[in-house]
């Protein structure tokens, strides 16, 4: 008598949509640190180099990170390093 779909009943007041909204982007990056996460696919570094140059030109702090391989999720230490140091993150480059 197994349910085909595992379901949970919503314990909340249901004031927010079932599909969660994305976090709103920050209004201002002037005091933020922007992480640039290279997924280690071809041309990723070149793409992020140009993003870094554009941000630095505007006086925005940048920190660079890289996944060892684009075939797997980022290792926890990379995720934690981004959380520790950055306010927002740009991930690239995929196809």
């Amino acid at each position, binding site marked *: 008598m197994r349910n085909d779909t595992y379901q*949970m009943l919503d*314990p909340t007041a249901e004031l927010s949509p079932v599909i969660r909204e994305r976090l709103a982007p920050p209004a201002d990056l002037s005091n933020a640190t922007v992480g640039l996460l290279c997924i280690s696919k071809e041309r990723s570094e070149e793409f992020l180099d140009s993003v870094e140059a554009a941000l630095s030109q505007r006086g925005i702090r940048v920190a660079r990170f890289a996944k060892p391989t684009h075939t797997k999720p980022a290792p926890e230490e990379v995720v934690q390093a981004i959380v520790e140091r950055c306010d927002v993150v740009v991930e690239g480059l995929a196809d």
Partner: protein
Amino acid sequence: MELIAVVKRDCETCGLVVPVLGTLAGQCTLTVYSQDDPTFPEPLGGARDDTSLEQSYHRNIEIVPTLIRLEDGKEQARTEGWNRGEWETVSGAAALGPELPASQPGCGSRSQEPGMPERLALRFGARHFTSRRIDVEALDDPIELAYDRGWTDGLPIVPPTPLRVARMLAGTGLAPDAIVGRLPPNLIECTVEKVAINAVMAGCRPEYLPVLLGCVAAALKPEFSMHGLLATLWFSGPVFIVNGPIAKRIGMNAEGNALGQGNRANSTIGRAFQLLIRNVGGGVPGEIDRSVLGNPGKVGFCFAEDERDPAWAPLNVSRGAAPGTSSVTAFHGDGVQAVGAQASRHAEELCRSLAMALWAVGHPKLSRFSNAILAISPDHWNIFKAEGWGRTDVEDGLKHALKRPRSEIVRGVGGVAEGVEPGDPDELLDKFHEGGLVIVRAGGPGGLLSAVIGGWSAQRNPQQVQIVTEEIRG
């Protein structure tokens, strides 16, 4: 006329009546349903397959075998188990099963196995939920999903599946769509169904649900000021004290480690209430919950009073409940402060010793600033009892011991700026408002120890913030 028989192979009486079913099949229209094996009974060529229990559920079968007579599709009579006279009455046939004993009781229907009625009610549409359903995809962990959605207090929750919630709702006679009140801070109408969902998540058993509903009723009384308790900078959260027979019925702990971990009811009822405030009310730490430090009891704080000694009047009775009533008392409490009054041997002296600890509540130089719970352990209670003291004597003794002259606690005295306003230096000031010290018996033997649970600073306004005792109903 049409006959229906519901049987299962795993029932000796069902096997016994097989020849009778064969006789009836030869005389009228007979439909046999088997709950566990459609090849049974073999002499009849098997039965209709009711392993899904759909027929058994819709026909409300409690015992097998059950024989039902229908006229124009409507049930006219039924009999359970085997009784020759009753089977003859229901079927209209004569001389049934002459080789059988006159009667033999049947077995329980599979549709009545533990947890099965709720499962079948869900499966066949008799139990509806108004809460929306959140799909958990095959690769998702439901507990992680609950974290991601912000449903938890930091500890894992039990996933509130429809079946678990249906079983939880069996713990109350209230309708799932009944409104229990508006939960702060967002003043959201809260249904019994939402209470049950959060009770599942906290780890409650269905029989705890009436206590949890009592907690909700008490905390939502305007005089309790739940919104303010949530929003305060102070340490406090709701503390629930359970009195009456329900505490023993659901296995609450009033004895050793009563204020600590290890008892499911104590640990989950208070937690379920706090999850309701979070999930339905929208009260989240760092948002509306502005507590500077909080306290570990804000995960959930609920315990029962030790009522075993008739020489001690239970808290709820002292607050107006009839003896034998199950009640919950809601208090605005902080963490536990230990009192090691181990040299005391006499009642009045013990009061003075306990009073010194109680003066520390809120601040040692403040009077009528906040309330407190004093949980008296068995060994301290024995000192009072040996001198013939009961609840009112302990209350009076402590009230007397809790007076201090203004000169000792006025602002600036002792090099401490905090203190009471200047005034008559000889005036004796009370530590607590009238009724502001809640005394309960709890704990295990072996130590001359008691516990103080300090109260919320807003209790200094007793017209606005009050301790509430509420009867526990269904």
